[in-house]
C-alpha cells in the first residue's frame, strides 16, 4: 500500500500519460543503442524522474529496477570524510552530489571517476556503458560543475550522464552544450485531469470532472501534488463532491497567513511578528524563493494596479539578491519592510486624496 502518486507511476516509456511524442522520441533514441549525455529539466511534478527511469528500463531491461541504496564514503584531499548515499542498480548509479553541500566537487571528482573508469564486465549482454544519474544539478556549486565538464568528455566511452534539474539557468553553459537537453514541461490542466480520472478509475472511484479541474489548477500543474491532493480529498470525503475543500499543505496555509499579516497592519511590531513567521517557514526548509513567491502572489491580491507592478518588481529584486546573498531571512525581511513602507505610504496618500 502506498500513495497513489507512486502506486500508479508508469514504468515504461510506452505507458506514460502525457507528452507522448516526447516519449516516443526518447524511445527511438534509446533503440539506436547509444545516446549522448542528457540534461533533463522541467518543473517539479512533471515526470522527469519517471521518464528517466522508463528510459533506463528501456535501455537495460527490468534489472534496472532492482535498486539498492548504498552509502559511499569519500575522502577529500583535505582528509575530510564525506558520506553520501547513492541509489544504484547493476547498470546505473544515481547520486545527488548537492547532498554533500560544499564538498560536492569532491563527490563529482572521486565518485564519478571511479564509476566511469571501470568497464562493464559483460558487454555482450549489456550496453557497453553505464549510466550515472545526477539529480539536482542546478544546486551544484560552480566548482563542481567545472569538475563535471572534463569528466563528461573523458569517460564518454564507458559512461553516460543523465543530469536532472529544475532549471537550466544555474547550469553553466559548457555543461549545457555537452548535453542533449530534454525539457519535460509541466502537464497541461487537461493532462492532469486526464491522469486524475484514469487513476480514480483504476482505484474504482467515480471522480467528477469539476473537481479534477479544480485540483489541477490548485496543484499548479504539478502532477505529483495533484495526485496527492486527490488522494487526500478521497480520504476526506467520498463520494467526491465537485465543490469540496481541497486540503492544502500546512506551509501553504502558514505562508498565506503571513502575507495577510503583512497586509493587515504595517508597524515595526508587525514586522517583528512577520520575521518570526518567516523564520518558522525557513526552519521548515521551505525554500526562500518559494516563500517570496507565495508572499508576492498573496500581496498582489491586495494591491492596486499601479502598486502591483512596483511590488512585483520589488519582489523580483529581492529574490535576485537573495540568491546572491547568504542569509535568506535578511532579504525576505527587507522585502516585507519595503512592502510595508510602500503600502503604508500608498494607503495614507490614498486617504489624503480621499479627504480633498
Amino acid at each position, binding site marked *: *500500500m*502506498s*500513495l497513489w502518486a*507512486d502506486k500508479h507511476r508508469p514504468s515504461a516509456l510506452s505507458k506514460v500519460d502525457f507528452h507522448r511524442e516526447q516519449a516516443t522520441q526518447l524511445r527511438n533514441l534509446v533503440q539506436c543503442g547509444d545516446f549522448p549525455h542528457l540534461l533533463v529539466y522541467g518543473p*517539479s*511534478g512533471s515526470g522527469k*524522474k*519517471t521518464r528517466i*527511469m522508463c528510459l533506463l528500463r528501456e535501455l537495460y531491461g527490468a534489472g534496472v*529496477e*532492482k*535498486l*539498492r*541504496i*548504498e*552509502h*559511499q564514503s569519500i575522502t577529500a584531499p583535505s582528509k575530510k*570524510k564525506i*558520506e553520501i548515499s547513492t541509489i544504484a542498480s547493476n547498470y546505473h548509479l544515481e547520486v*545527488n552530489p548537492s*547532498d554533500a553541500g560544499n564538498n560536492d566537487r569532491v563527490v563529482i571528482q572521486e565518485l564519478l571517476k571511479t564509476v566511469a573508469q571501470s568497464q562493464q564486465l559483460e558487454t555482450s549482454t549489456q550496453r557497453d556503458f553505464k549510466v550515472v544519474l545526477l539529480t*539536482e544539478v542546478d544546486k551544484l556549486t560552480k566548482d563542481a560543475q567545472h569538475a563535471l565538464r572534463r569528466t563528461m568528455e573523458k569517460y564518454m566511452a564507458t559512461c553516460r550522464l543523465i543530469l536532472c534539474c529544475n532549471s537550466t539557468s544555474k547550469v553553466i553553459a559548457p555543461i549545457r552544450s555537452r548535453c542533449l537537453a530534454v525539457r519535460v514541461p509541466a502537464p497541461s490542466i487537461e493532462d492532469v485531469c486526464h491522469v486524475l480520472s484514469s487513476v480514480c478509475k483504476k482505484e474504482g472511484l467515480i471522480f467528477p470532472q469539476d473537481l479534477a479541474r479544480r485540483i489541477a489548477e490548485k496543484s499548479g500543474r504539478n502532477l*505529483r*501534488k495533484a495526485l*496527492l*491532493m486527490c*488522494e*487526500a480529498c478521497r*480520504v476526506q470525503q467520498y463520494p467526491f463532491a465537485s465543490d469540496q475543500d481541497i*486540503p492544502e*499543505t500546512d*506551509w501553504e496555509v*502558514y505562508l498565506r497567513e503571513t502575507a495577510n499579516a503583512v497586509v493587515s497592519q504595517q*508597524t*515595526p511590531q508587525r*514586522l*517583528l511578528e512577520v520575521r518570526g513567521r518567516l*523564520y*518558522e517557514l*525557513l*526552519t*521548515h*526548509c*521551505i525554500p526562500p524563493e*518559494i516563500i517570496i513567491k507565495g508572499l508576492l502572489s498573496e500581496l498582489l491580491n491586495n494591491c492596486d494596479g499601479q502598486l502591483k507592478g512596483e511590488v512585483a518588481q520589488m519582489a523580483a529584486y529581492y529574490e535576485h*539578491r537573495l540568491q546572491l*546573498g*547568504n*542569509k535568506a531571512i*535578511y*532579504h525576505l*525581511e*527587507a522585502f516585507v*519592510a*519595503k512592502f*510595508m*513602507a510602500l503600502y*503604508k*505610504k500608498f494607503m*495614507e496618500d490614498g486617504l489624503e486624496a480621499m479627504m480633498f
Partner: protein
Amino acid sequence: MDIRKFFGVLPADKKHDHESVKKNEKIKNRETTSNGKQKAKEIKVKSSSNEDDSKQKQANKKKRIIYDSDSEEETQSVKKSKNPPDRKASSSKPDKVLKQDPVVYVSETDEEDDSVNKNSSRKPKENGTSSSGRQGTPGIQKSDLKTQSKSKPVSPVKLTPTSVLDYFGTGSVQRSEKKLVASKRKELERQLHEDEEFARTLAMLDETPKKKKARKDPEEKQIVLPAKTSPNTTEKHKPSSKGKTENSTDDTHSFTAKDQTKSESKRTSCSNPESSVSKDRKDPASKTLPVKPSSKLVAMKQQEENNKKEKTTLDPAAREKTASKEEKATPKKEKVSPQKFESISPEDSEKKRVNYQAYRSFLNREGPRALGSKEIPQGAENCFEGLTFVITGVMESIERDEAKSLIERYGGKVTGNVSKKTNYLIMGRDSGQSKCEKASSLGTKILDEDGLFNLIRTTAGKKSKYELAAEAEAKKAKSKLDKTPQKTEPEKRKISPAKRETDPKKSNSTPDKGEAYKSVTKETTEARKGLHFKQEAVEKKPAAKDEACLVPATSKGSGDGGLLWVDKYRPTSLRTIIGQQGDQSCANKLLRWLRNWHRNTSLEDKQAKPGKFGSKDDGASFKAALLSGPPGVGKTTTASLVCEEVGYSYVELNASDTRSKKSLKEVVAESLNNTSIKDFCTGTSHSVSIKHVLIMDEVDGMAGNEDRGGMQELIGLIKHTKIPIICMCNDRNHPKIRSLVHYCLDLRFHRPRVEQIKGAMLSIAFKEKLKIPPPAMNEIILAANQDIRQVLHNLTMWCVKNKSLTYDEAKADAIKAKKDTKLCPFDVARKVFAAGEETAHMSFIDKSDLFFHDYSLAPLFVQENYVHVKPAAAGGNMKKHLMLLSRAADSICDGDLVDRQIRSKQNWSLLPTQAIYSSVLPGELMRGYLAQFPNFPSWLGKFSSTMKHDRIIQELTMHMSLRTLASKRAVNLEYLPYLRDALVRPLTCLGTDGVQDTVALMDSYCLMREDVESIMEISSWGGKPSAFSKLDPKVKSAFTRAYNKEAHLTPYSLHVVKISKRQAGFRVDSELNEELNADEVQSDENEQDAIETDAMIKQKKAKPSKPSKAVKNEESRKGKGKGKGKKKD
C-alpha cells in the same frame, strides 16, 4: 556634525508641565508653615532631594542619587582665593548657602540622568553601591581608626589618619566593572566628586611637611586637643561659647590663609590642627558675622553640623569624646525626615505622570540649532576657579559637552544639579524645570549662553589653587633651607616616600625607617635563602625586583630617577593600596584568611570538613586564595603586602617560570616542606616552617606545552599544602581557571573608582612637580580604563616633555592613550543605535570600529535589533519610521551580499565595506532609542534548527527514494504533509485497529519508527503539537509494538557511519558494510561475490531467502533496542 540634520528632524514636541511647578511650590508652602522659617530652608534642600528620591522610586526609573559633600572643597577654595573681587562674589553667594548646612546633598535627578538611565539595567546596582558606599564611609573610617589607635594610641601622627582615607577615597569598594561602557555615568559621577579629593590631597600636602616637625613638637598635641574639645563645649552652651570658638578658629584660619612665610614654629602650631577642621570652622566664623540675631537656630544647626563633621574627620580621641554629642545630634536630624515623606506621598501618581512626560519630551529633544554660529571666547587662565555651574537645556551654538569642557578648562566645575553651592545656572532651550525652579529659589544667577561667553571674557584670571599650593610648598622649602640648610636635603627626600605611609606603625618609626625596611628585606631574603631551589637564578630575579619595589627607601641614596613611577610609588603598606581600605575589601579578607590559615587548617584536620557554604565568608575551609581582577588594580601588590603584614615570607612563581606538572612538583612541592634556615639560627625551628606563602602569579598563563598539567598539579598541591597558596589571575571565568576556582577562596578585585585613583595620582603628580588639573586627571584615568599602572605609565611618558599639562593637552593625550577595550556584542548593538551625546562625537571611523569588535556577530546583532529601535529621525511618524526600517533592512541586505563575497572568495579586504553596510548605515538610519536590552541574534538558533531539519529531510528522502524518486525539496513540500496525514489517519480513526495499515504504509515507503517521529516533528507548525502526539498513548504503544514485532527490511544499511569509521582503513563499500553487519568477515574475493548476493538482498520486490536470513540474523542479534541505536547514527 549632527547626523539628524540629514534625516529631516521633526520638531520634537516639548511639553512643559506647569503642574509640577505648582506642586513643588505647594509642598514647600506646606512645609514652611509647619516648620520654623529657618528650619524650612534647610528642609527644603533635603526634601527636594528626598522628593526626587521618592519620585524616582515611584516612577520606577532606576535613578541614581549621589549624596555628596561639597562644602569642604568650596570653603577651601574660598580660603585660598586671594582675588578680592572673586572672593566677594563667592562669599556673598555661598554665604547664604553655607549658613544653613555645610553638607550639601547633591542629587542627580535631572534629565541628563534619564538619558543615561534609559538603557541601563545595571543602574540599580550602581545606585545601591554608591549610596551605601557613602553611608558606609564613617563606619569604615571608624574601624580603621580604631585599629590604628589600638596599635599606637598616642602617636603624634594620629592627626593624619583621616587624611589618609581622604587621600585614597573612602568610597565604596564594590563597583561595576563595565566602566567604559557606562562612561557616561562616570562622567556624571566625576562632576560630583571632582575637586574635593584633590582639595584634600592638597590639604594633605600642606600638612605633611609639618607633620615632620610635629613629631619633634610635643606641644602640638596639646594645642590640638583644646581646639578639638572646644566644639564640644560650644555645643553644651551654644549661644554663649559660640563667640569663643569663632575667635579661636578665626585665629587659626588667619594664620593658615594669610601668611605662609611666617616663622616655622608658629605656623605649625597654628596649622597643625587639621586643615579641614580649621577650614570648616572658618566658614561659620566668617559667615556668622552678618547673621541676624533671630537666626539662633541656624547657628545651632551650623554648630551641630560642624561638630558632626569634625567628629567624622577627627582623630579617635576626639571622636570618643564627641561620641555622646553625636548621638544627641542625630535624633534631630531624623526628626526631620518623616515630615518630608508625609508631604510627598499623596501626589505620587501625578508626579509619576509629569516625570514621564518630561522624560518623553527629553527623549525627543533636538540638538543645538546653530552649532558653531558663535565664536567661543578666550578667557583668562583659570578664571572660573571655585565656581560651580549647572547646565540645563540645549545651548544654541555649542553642544552641551563642549560647554562643559569649556567651563572645566577654565577651572570651573560643572555639577548635575542645582545646589546651594551653585554659582551659575546656564540655561538653554528646553531647560529642565526643576533646575530653574531650584535656582530661582536659591537665588542662583541664571545665565544664558551669551552670558556664559561674556563671563568668560570678563572674568579675570587667577592663580589656581594647586599652583598656590605649589608655591606655598616652594616657599616652605625655601624657608626651611634658610633655617637648616644642611638638614633639608635628606629630609625633603624623605618626604615623598613617607607621605603615603601614614600608617601609624610605619610613620612612627620614620626616623629609622630606612633601617626598618632594611631589616624587613633582610628577613625576606633570609627566609628566601632558606628555601632550597633548584633554579636559583629564576628565583633570584624576582627577589631582587621585590626588594627594589617594596623598599623605595633603600634606593634613596642613588636617587629615585632610575625607578619607574609604578615601582617608586608602589604602596608600602596595606592601608595605602588604592581601593582596598574597606573592612570587606579583598585585601582585608585576604589578610584575615591568611592570619587564620594555620588555625583553620589544623582545626580542619581534627574535625570533619565544615560545610563549604557555611564558612564561605572568611574562606576558612579553603587552603588557597584566588585573586582575580583586571590588570593594574594591585593584585600582586596586595598579595605581597598582605604577606608582609602577617609576617610571612613568600615565594612567587609567575609566568616567567616554568610551571609544568613536573617542575611544580619538584620545585614547589619540595619547598613547601622546607624549613627556614633563619629558624635554625634563632633556635626556634619547627619541623616545618609555617612562615611562608606560595604566590602563584598569573595562573591563567599556565598554558601550552611548557606548563602542561600544571593546573592539575597546582590543584593537587592545594589539596595537600601545608602553607597558604595565593593564586592570581585576570579572568576567573576562563575555562582553564574554572577547575581551580573550586579549591580557592574567591576574591575578586574590581577597578577602583576614578576618585579613588585620582587622589593618589594627583599627589604623585605633585611630588613629581607636575601640574595636572584635576579634570585632566579624570580624563587620563578614564582613558586608561582605571588601570592604575597604566595611568602612572602614561603620566611618566607625557611628563618627560614638560612638567605641566593643561586640560586640553591632557584630554588630547588621554584620547590618544585610550585603551582599546573590547565591548561585548550587546553593548555594540546598543551603541550602534544609541542617539544623543554618547555617539554625537563619534567619528565615522569610530562607528565602523564598533563593527570590528566582533565582525562575525555584529551584523547579526544589528539585524536582530534594528526593528526594536525607535528612530529619532522618524519623530513618531509611522510612515517615516517604516521608510527608515526599510532602508535599514536594505542596507543590511547589502551587507549580506558583501558578506557572501567575503566568505566565498576569501576577500577579507571587503570587511570595512561590510562594516558600513551592516552596522554604520543601519545605525545612522535608525539612530534613536533602543527600548530594550539588545536581543541575542535568533538567526543562529534558527539556522541550526534549519540545518537539523534539512538533515532529517535528507534522511527521509533517502529512505523513501526507492518509492518516491523525488528530490529533497519535493519530498518536503509535497510528500510529507500528505504522508503524515496518511500515516496518522488510520491511528486516529481506527485506533489500535488502524495500526496495521500504518505499518504497511511505512513498510511500503521503507520508513522506520524514528522516521515517523521525524515526519511529525518537521510537519508541526507554529509550535503546535503534531497530530501524532495527540494520539492515545495506548494506540501509540500498540503501534510501536506492532512495528517492532516484525522485522522490517530496509534497502539502506542501518549502521553505516559507525562501521565505516571502524573500517577506516578498508576500502569502504556498502557491500562490505553489509557483510560486516552479518558478522561475515570476508576476503576481497568473497566480497566480489557478495556484491551480487547483496544487491539482491536489498532488492525490494524479490526477496531471496538466503540474504534475508542474514538480515534477520542481524536483527535478532540487535534485539529490541536496535531501533534506538539506529537513530544515533
